[in-house]
């Protein structure tokens, strides 16, 4: 019991050191620009179809699901505003982050884990390439910057999905739909949600890298690294979300 507790704390301590090392190495040259762009492409562009489909379906489903409740209040015309608010404030960031945790975090964990197991990381060190700088910094930075953009895409596509959902039973002009959305939105909806996604991205990348980089020797540890990366990243997303909500509530 005490041992497992100690191990957990040791893990958290290691992760904290790992994260602080990221900020140190981020500032210090050399910068791996080419690898960074490649990771951006893999993390951002390649995840786009998945995020787009999820976002569209979330918007559509949310609209159809919340319509009956609003109809009982006779507030059907508030549907666009309500869908936009819940999409932008909560659903699009969290769903996108969870999908990225599943796709990116596990990918990074498996990739780095297998590199660790096949001793490619050691080989890098031998050939005077800083493996942390080359592998970890680029991935975490790419994650931190790409996830917010993916969330913005998810927002936009989710709203299109919401428009489709509204037009299943009602008839709303697209321009009117957009203007209703913009009327119901404020900066206090958009900005905290966007800031939150940077943290989501950072933790998705960081946990994936940490689990992969610290994988034990042996083939099965690759799978374990990938698995625990997904689980921990998903959990951390919810924890960050909770903290973010409380902070936002405090400030606004």
């Amino acid at each position, binding site marked *: 019991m005490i041992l497992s507790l100690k191990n957990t704390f040791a893990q958290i301590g290691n992760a904290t050191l790992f994260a602080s090392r990221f900020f140190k190495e981020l500032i210090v040259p050399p910068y791996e620009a080419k690898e960074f762009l490649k990771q951006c492409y893999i993390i951002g562009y390649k995840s786009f179809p998945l995020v787009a489909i999820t976002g569209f379906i979330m918007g559509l489903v949310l609209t159809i699901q919340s319509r009956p409740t609003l109809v009982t209040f006779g507030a059907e015309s508030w549907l666009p505003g309500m869908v936009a608010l819940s999409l932008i404030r909560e659903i699009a960031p969290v769903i996108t982050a969870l999908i990225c945790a599943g796709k990116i975090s596990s990918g990074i964990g498996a990739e780095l884990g297998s590199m660790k197991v096949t001793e490619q990381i050691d080989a890098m060190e031998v050939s005077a390439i800083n493996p942390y700088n080359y592998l970890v910094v680029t991935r975490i930075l790419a994650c931190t910057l790409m996830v917010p953009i993916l969330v913005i895409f998810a927002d936009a596509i989710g709203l299109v999905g919401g428009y489709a959902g509204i037009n299943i039973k009602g008839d709303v002009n697209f321009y009117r739909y957009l203007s209703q959305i*913009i009327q119901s939105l404020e900066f206090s909806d958009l900005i905290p949600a966007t800031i939150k996604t940077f943290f989501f991205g950072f933790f998705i990348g960081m946990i994936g890298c940490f689990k992969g980089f610290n994988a034990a020797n042996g083939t099965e540890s690759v799978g374990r690294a990938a698995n625990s990366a997904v689980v921990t990243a998903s959990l951390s997303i919810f924890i960050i979300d909770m903290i973010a909500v409380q902070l936002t509530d405090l400030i606004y």
Partner: protein
Amino acid sequence: MEKESGYTWKLGMFVSIGLLLFITAVYFIGKQKNLFGSTFHISSKFKTVSGLEVGNNVRFSGINIGTVEEIQIINDSSVIVSMVIKDEVRKFIKTDARAGIGSDGLMGDKVLTISPGVKSTKIIEDNGTIASIDGIEMNDIMKSVKKSVDNVGVISEELAIFSHSMNNGNGALARLVRDDKMANSVSNTLSNLESGTKGFSENMEAAKSNFLFRGYFKKKEKEKAKKQEEKQEKQAEQEKAAKEEKEKQEKEKQEKAKEEKAKDEKEKQDKQKEQDAKKEPEKKQ
């Protein structure tokens, strides 16, 4: 090298579209909140703002032209509301415009409405102040609604009693409305009355020629003639002074006379009806 350029343009497109979406969202929300574009400030002093909040819309002729920027209590009976308004509508807001607080629908947000003044042609300055109209509180509306509803209750009660007595009662009016016999007898009595009055005037003529009354009637005629002569003299003098006014007055007199005649006739008819109504049951009995 080819492979590299293969993904960089996709990445660039992805990032730039994402950022573009974000910027447009920020721009449109900002436009809604008047953060961008040129604006000016005006303020107005209210006794109560009845729930107006910072960020509520300001309307002019029903169009959203700005938002409430600050609400400040300056003492126990006055609140200063300052608002940001688009510069493009400034030329329409004159110095005697007035601000009022309304609400957007029954359940909606409060809105600050600026209603245009009448006289002034001077355009309001930046940081200028305008007068305010005290808003109507929901309580006041409810009070007046309650009053009129109470009145309606009383009226409908009385109306019910009235219509009940009309339908079921045995009063004169009720019978007049319901009974065909009644209507017939009323018309009969009217025709009787007509012939009666004819006979009466004949009697009067006869009385005039009677020697007992002749002197009396002659005296009366003489007096009348004298009075008329005096009147005519006076009228001639007055007419010279103001013909036009007299003409008007005469017209008015004539009209009044007509009206009075009409009234008298009506009253007579009513009285007759009542009398007839009284007679009817007696006949029946």
